């Protein structure tokens, strides 16, 4: 049984869990990583047992693609300071979807920077509320200052067809990136 994963990122309240839930065959679950507040590494609890702990929660969903292949969709932790958890999440991932709310574009800057630095294939998905997309894709591209090679798509995180199309766009982009380095 083979598994692959896609990371879903974006600012607080942008609709990551809604997105995951729309396409997942299970109700999204939550996994928690426990660590000390001052920790720089994941699960670093080798010290005093009653040190203050903090939990980093990640919602995720599952999509069975064929009899031997399962896709997991992981929402990034809400707090950006847990970058080591992001490092863990993106290890061997297909890529990421950065969900963007055009009313709060700056919320997605950290995620975009992070994936560009990490060299992970990603696309930007503009989550339109009430089916409204007040900004053009070019506006969004300029505001986020992403490279023109990064696909920007419109998405309704509540809709299964739309989230499926977004995931397809990401996988196609990941394939294009691989083919361009041959």
């Amino acid at each position, binding site marked *: 049984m083979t598994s692959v994963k896609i990371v879903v990122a974006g600012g607080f309240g942008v609709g990551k869990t809604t997105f995951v839930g729309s396409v997942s065959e299970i109700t999204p679950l939550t996994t928690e990583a426990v660590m000390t507040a001052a920790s720089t590494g994941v699960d670093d609890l080798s010290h005093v047992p009653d040190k203050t702990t903090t939990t980093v929660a990640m919602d995720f969903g599952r999509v069975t693609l064929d009899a031997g292949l399962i896709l997991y969709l992981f929402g990034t932790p809400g707090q950006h300071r847990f970058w080591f958890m992001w490092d863990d999440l993106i*290890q061997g991932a297909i890529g990421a979807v950065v969900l963007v709310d055009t009313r709060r574009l700056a919320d997605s800057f950290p995620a975009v920077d992070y994936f560009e630095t990490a060299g992970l294939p990603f696309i930007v998905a503009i989550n339109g509320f009430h089916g409204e997309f007040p900004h053009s894709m070019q506006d969004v591209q300029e505001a986020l200052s992403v490279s023109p090679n990064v696909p920007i798509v419109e998405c309704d995180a509540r809709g299964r067809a739309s989230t499926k199309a977004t995931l397809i766009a990401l996988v196609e982009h990941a394939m294009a990136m691989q083919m361009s380095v041959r």
Partner: protein
Amino acid sequence: MAGSGPDEWPPTGGRRGSLNGMRPPSGDLPASSLVRPYAVTGGRTKPRYQLQIEAMVAASHYEARDLSVLSPECQAILGFCRDWRSVAEVSAVLRMPLGVARVLIADMAVEGLVRVHQLDHAQGRPDLNLLERVLSGLRKL
């Protein structure tokens, strides 16, 4: 877990049968306890090898053996993983921290109690063949 290394606490003094010593303190561990989440791993926080969050786990088909020597957490993992499950699902559904799930599953894999499957990440990202397969599966949804 022969011998005690720097990341073992309390030290097991070379006792073999790594899972035998790993019982939680008397009484049930509260499901959402954050006080001593690593009590079930004897304080160890580093798994024997790195498991991806999406690594797949399945209980091995083994001859009947006495599972009562295993901790309740390990027995729960074996029961839950009769079908292939991811490390993340073990953590979420069995309500244990991700790091604890990773340590226990890695131990059980070394002991032959579970099979684990994950992509070889030294290879980087999923290759074109696998991506094609993912695309195919997504289109059929």
